[in-house]
């Protein structure tokens, strides 16, 4: 058997070691570029978003001026005299809250049905359906909202004696957003429910709990952290959504609107207004709204993550007193968290109580 040419191998190896180094640096370089996209994005949005308060613009009435910062923060109307953003922030939060009220229960129940109740084939069919829903583009949801949901809301409101402007309303926006976030939340919930340990489920069933009691009390509790992650993603999608919302919400220029049948506008829907025509201050102010949008997303993410930690590790703090109401009686429980085993036992007792 031939052996390799010694010198050639050594030469080869040295060359390869050099290529390795170069390629490694290339990969690192590309990775740094990919990671710096977000820094670059935030920098430019903030840089341009400050402009309306600093630069001088020629306004529509011919005078020169800029946007008052305080007016921007507290303004309740959006127009040439003052581009206020407070009402937009409130509207955005309100519409997102409404959509979450619709989407969270629907998603959780759907994911329980798919993973725990439906026979395997039906579950697969439902899951595939939801995957398709997740990949339907937002503009098609907007089209569906305009073509189906708005007329529906209009007729419904007319039925109870309320005039709407063709169905364009807060509730239409909330429904469309809910439809868009349901697939996201459901898919994440399915994964986290599937990863709940079988021994929990078997333990609960062995204690005489019915299947549905197990699903709602044990499985859901085990999957809580995953489900909240799904909710974070879903709400993120709802907050950042622009095209679909701008088509169904009615684009009001003042607010805030709390009437669910009234027209409203969100940060994103205002950003989509007058594209292709707007110039100067009315165009640049969008970037300031962009800063507000990113701030809201970050704050909501932080809050939800805090809630997630609170729920998944509720007894992290020592000497915590927990009060809860059951069958009309207020119970007080004190946890003196000296060591973990104690805590677990208490938990077990509690679960048993519930199952009785």
């Amino acid at each position, binding site marked *: *058997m*031939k052996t*390799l040419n010694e010198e*050639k191998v*050594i030469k*080869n*190896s*040295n060359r*390869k*070691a050099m290529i390795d180094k170069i390629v490694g640096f290339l990969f690192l370089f590309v990775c740094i570029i990919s990671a710096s996209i977000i820094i670059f994005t935030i920098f430019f949005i903030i840089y341009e978003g400050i402009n309306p308060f600093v630069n001088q613009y020629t306004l529509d009435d011919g005078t020169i001026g800029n946007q008052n910062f305080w007016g921007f923060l507290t303004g309740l109307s959006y127009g040439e005299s003052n581009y206020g953003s407070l009402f937009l922030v409130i509207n955005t939060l309100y519409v997102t809250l409404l959509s979450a009220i619709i989407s969270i229960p629907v998603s959780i129940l759907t994911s329980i049905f798919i993973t725990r109740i439906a026979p395997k084939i039906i579950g697969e069919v439902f899951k595939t359906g939801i995957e398709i829903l997740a990949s339907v583009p937002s503009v098609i949801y907007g089209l569906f909202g305009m073509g189906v949901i708005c007329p529906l809301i209009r007729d419904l409101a007319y039925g109870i004696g309320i005039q709407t402007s063709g169905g364009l309303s807060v509730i239409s926006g909330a429904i469309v957003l809910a439809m868009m976030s349901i697939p996201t939340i459901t898919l994440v919930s399915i994964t986290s429910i599937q990863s709940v340990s079988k021994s929990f489920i078997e333990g609960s069933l062995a204690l005489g709990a019915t299947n549905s009691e197990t699903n709602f009390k044990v499985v859901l509790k085990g999957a809580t952290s995953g489900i909240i992650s799904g909710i974070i993603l879903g709400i993120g999608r709802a907050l950042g959504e622009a095209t679909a919302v701008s088509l169904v919400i009615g684009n009001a220029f003042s607010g805030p609107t709390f009437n669910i049948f009234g027209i409203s506008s969100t940060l994103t829907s205002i950003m989509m207004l007058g594209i292709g025509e707007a110039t100067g201050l009315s165009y640049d102010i969008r970037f300031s709204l962009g800063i507000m949008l990113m701030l809201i997303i970050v704050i909501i993410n932080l809050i939800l993550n805090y809630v997630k930690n609170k729920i998944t590790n509720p007894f992290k703090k020592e000497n915590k007193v927990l009060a809860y109401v059951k069958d009309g009686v207020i119970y007080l429980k004190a946890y003196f968290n000296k060591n973990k085993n104690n805590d677990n036992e208490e938990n077990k007792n509690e679960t048993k109580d519930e199952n009785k």
Partner: protein
Amino acid sequence: MEENQVVFSVKNLNLYYGDKKALNNISLDIYKNKVTAFIGPSGCGKSTFLRCFNRMNDLIENCKVEGEILLNGKNILEVNPIYLRTKVGMVFQQPNPFPMSIYNNVIYGLKCQGIKNKKELMEICIDSLEKSALINEVKERLKDNALALSGGQQQRLCIARCIALSPEVILMDEPTSALDPIATSKIEELIRELKKDYTIIIVTHNMQQATRISDYTAFFMLGDLVEYNKTEEFFAHPQDKRSDDYISGKFS
């Protein structure tokens, strides 16, 4: 011991993972055309020590090696590791042929060295498969996917692709722990066959296996080399109390 030619000579080797010392001042010689077995309880550093011989530890972060490992008188810590690994082959615990044809698996290392002559490659491929006692089983299906082979066949294929580079030393890291007894005995037979051409260092957690196939045995414990001797002598008259306890099964 004196009549044997020394291939590897380890002198005062220390190895650290971060601040933790994993190998403590180890010195030993590995002899040519012999099978040397490393035994010891799990976590004693025998696999880590094995991976020093072809510098696979370079890939692990925070891993620092001090001391000397001489291959034919040359310190391998100063040699280009890519070159070193063509001289010192390695077979892993899990049989892990690449998901490509059997033929391509065997010639993978050669192709990386830039050999393109098809006839030459085929020759070496057949030769390596012959040496690893696999040729009769795969002669007809060299172009088939290697993942279709059984576990034992996959492990022998891994040995074949190692031999194809005609290394001096073959390192084996518990090569039979993932295999059934029949496949294990085949591999052991193969190892006895291979030591005519190659020097073999094998890590095993199975003392019977060490007695069956090895000429020398090194016993490790907690990063120390406790005892190193000819296999018969090591098992018949262990010098150290710890070796004695281990052999008699007081701990494992």
